[in-house]
């Protein structure tokens, strides 16, 4: 089992969600987050004075999937999230030991 964590532009959320459900992924967790990478922050102007805002609003999407879905998942995410400009975000992939569905007690792949 793999966990795929996507941090990207908030307005891309709907496209990514549709891409993921389109290949059969049945659940995800979404969080509003703030942070910065190479894009750094942005400028805001109040009464003529410019202020640097360091942390940019991003959305974090987490999905846990079967390993054989990984390549396809990464491909559809990149297609949906890419604009080619700085600030598209990152994808982190990690291995998950196990998963349990609380309602039934199922574990492993059938719990996803």
């Amino acid at each position, binding site marked *: 089992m793999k966990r795929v964590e996507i941090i990207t532009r908030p307005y891309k959320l709907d496209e990514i969600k549709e891409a993921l459900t389109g290949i059969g992924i049945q659940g995800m967790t979404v969080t509003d987050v703030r942070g910065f990478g190479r894009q750094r922050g942005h400028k*805001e*102007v*109040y*009464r*003529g004075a*410019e202020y*640097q*805002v360091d942390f940019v609003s991003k959305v974090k999407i987490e999905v846990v999937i079967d390993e054989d879905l990984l390549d396809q998942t990464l491909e559809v995410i990149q297609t949906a999230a890419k604009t080619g400009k700085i600030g598209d975000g990152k994808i982190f992939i990690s291995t998950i030991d196990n998963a349990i569905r609380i309602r039934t007690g199922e574990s492993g792949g059938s719990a996803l």
Partner: protein
Amino acid sequence: MNPTDTAFIIICAALVMFMTPGLALFYAGMTRSKNVLGTMMQSFAAIGVITLVWIFWGYSLAFGTDVYGLIGGLDFVGMAGVGMEPHESIATNLPHMVFMIFQCMFAIITPALITGAFAERMRFSAFLLFIVLWCTFVYAPLCHWVWGGGWMYEMGALDFAGGAVVHMSSASAALAAVLVIGKRKGWGKRSFLPHNLPMTMIGTALLWFGWFGFNAGSALAADGLAGNAFVTTHIAAGTAMLAWIFAEWKLHGKPTTLGAASGAVAGLVAITPAAGFVGIMPSVIIGLGAGVFCYYGVSLKSRFGYDDSLDVVGIHGIGGIWGALATGLFASTAINPAGADGLFYGNPSQLWIQFVSVVATCVFAFTMSYVLLKIISLVTPLRVTDEEEEAGLDVAIHSESAYQA
């Protein structure tokens, strides 16, 4: 006594009262989310504190029998002789107590205006002490000089609704306060961004609405002059709002809502001394000047390195000075026979008189405020501790949060 005038001024007094809660919203939207209640509390507290100061001695010091042109006598202390009948010489068309309460609302909003300067760091108890003393030793004398028959009135200075008494005085006090109290922790290193601009927009709307009572009511009668003041007030506010947003659009590339709010208030400030002395076209010019001058005015703080948190000096100071001088340019006896002609109507000496009133008001209010704050600081600390400042005034001073997570 005139019943129509009385009805009008009672309503105007209520409108002016509404400006102080409006100001609380205007300011609170610009603070960080941890200082919202602390900021609003200062404006609301002023409503209670100044009302009591006013009825016990403030009104008498402002409007009592003149003493050497400097201060009013003690005739009206504790509201002695202030009843339902008109006074024999003060606003003879109104019940004396109606005139008194209309003036009371002006006395309330003036110290509330200062709170924008030391927002996010002043101790509440020191603040309460400050406004009691400030109303007594700064506002009441100034009010007497200009409207109570004091020396500025005798000199012929024109201040229809409080350019000097309200705006220049509060801005001068604001400058003194930020110099005595000091900058917020992290000023210049961290960004202090407004937490809720819609709140500021609502506050602006309430101020604009209440300002009609402030300026039109200053005619002290339901007459054509009140109508003129209403119209010039509205025109200047609208024009200044546009002037500010076009100025920032050109210089920073984007028109902003805070710019619209700031411009509108700048225009309202600038037209205040002029509203009942100038005509329609001058009010457009006064609005234009207010929008542009105050837009530059708010940048003074970064140039000179003082932390006037919410730009009291930039907007009320610059706007008030421009309005007072513009009154000396555009005043016309065709609008108000009880006023005077300005420079453009053949009377250059009026501009000089206005200039003297600006300098005297600013020097007096700045010096007195500076001294009062220094004296208070000997009795009790003016600002919260570093830890309280970091936690925010809401939790540290009032044990409340504006927003629950």
